[in-house]
């Protein structure tokens, strides 16, 4: 057994998920590749979005991949940190906006 749940070498083995279900894996990787191509958004913008989402979903593989990916696409450190602040603001905001729900309930049950 591995000592940790996450192993950085597993990132390179992502493609091997096709071993247990090739059809769906092929469809996913096709779609994945298509998503990250330059479109209405540039590849750099997409890498920065991916970096922000990686932090929101707290996936260490994605953080690893999209830190390098953002650098490769020419993003600078400030852009990368701002992307993470966007993720943090949305996550923090998402928690806080539910404060209204809490307040509603308080008002309902309090005299």
């Amino acid at each position: 057994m591995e000592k940790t749940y996450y192993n950085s070498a597993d990132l390179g083995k992502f493609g091997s998920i096709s071993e247990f279900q090739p059809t769906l894996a092929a469809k996913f990787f096709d779609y994945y590749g298509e998503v990250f191509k330059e479109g209405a958004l540039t590849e750099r913008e997409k890498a920065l979005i991916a970096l922000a989402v990686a932090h929101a979903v707290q996936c260490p593989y994605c953080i690893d991949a999209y830190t390098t990916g953002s650098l490769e696409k020419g993003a600078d450190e400030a852009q990368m940190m701002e992307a993470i602040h966007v993720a943090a603001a949305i996550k923090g905001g998402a928690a806080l906006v539910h404060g209204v729900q809490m307040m509603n309930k308080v008002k309902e049950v309090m005299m």
Partner: protein
Amino acid sequence: MKSLAAQNSPFADTAFQLDVLMQPQQQGTAFPMFGQRLLDHGLLPLKPTQISILQINVGKMCNQVCKHCHVDAGPDRKEIMTRETMQLCLDALAQTDIPVVDLTGGAPEMNPYFRWFVEEISKLGRQIIVRCNLTIILANKKYHDLPEFFKQHRVQVVSSLPYFTASRTDTQRGDGVFDKSIKALQMLNAVGYGQEGSGLMLDLVYNPAGSFLPGNQKALEGEFKRRLKQGYDITFNNLFAITNLPISRYLDYLISTGNYEPYMEKLVNAFNPAAAANVMCRNTVSVGWEGSLYDCDFNQMLELPVESRAPRHIRDFHLEALTARNIVINQHCYGCTAGAGSSCGGETVS
């Protein structure tokens, strides 16, 4: 910072570097041999297509000591080309119609015969590229008129600027390099370089400041153009995205930071047969400061001369014999074949 040679570093020894590259088992990971990959794609032996560029390295002397430098150049390097060897290059050029001469170093402008050499090549009617590190223009009063000199000979100026921010540029190239490079670019712009309609070409070289690969060249060029225009009112023609090859100071950096294995793995995984078919050694011959001939500037720095059947010194230059040669390859060549490919002119696959 000093050159590896001045530090007596083992990485100054080319045999040591080749040993590192050739070790089939680096901590348990075997990288496939580059030659085997070429063979799999019908490219071995690797042959020139047509020699259209003579790249001349006029010496290792430089005013900078960049961390990634494959030449291990610096102010402490005294190896520079003599005027006699330059004359041999001119003689070789005169007997062929190789259209492009690419002058590199070190900082080629530091060679005392640099201007004479450019003038003589110019008289032969060849297109001249100078790989100018930008800061040299400001390094001393005697270099301040280089933009004018380049303009006079319609030299194509190709300059490194690893990034459009000071921090990332200075990390790779030394403190204050970014500000000086910006000033030099403005001086080049002022005499017409990079300006539309002037015909004076100013190209920038981007190479990653770390152990990652360059992204899409066109996209990076767009970003560089936007940021340099916005921030400093600088314009330029093309951006060449170049992959760092695992040799010399960059190899030292990779090994000492534990990045060697993952970087090689990235290069190997990104092997692109189309890029392999377009490697620059197929259209270039490289001349060292002492006149020896090499397949490229990287092989030159690894002291891997052209194969022994071919002429090995500029005094014996023979176009047909060199065109018939087999190119000498090694594991560092993976740097030229990753992704969209890499050469002194940037990507090799569009």
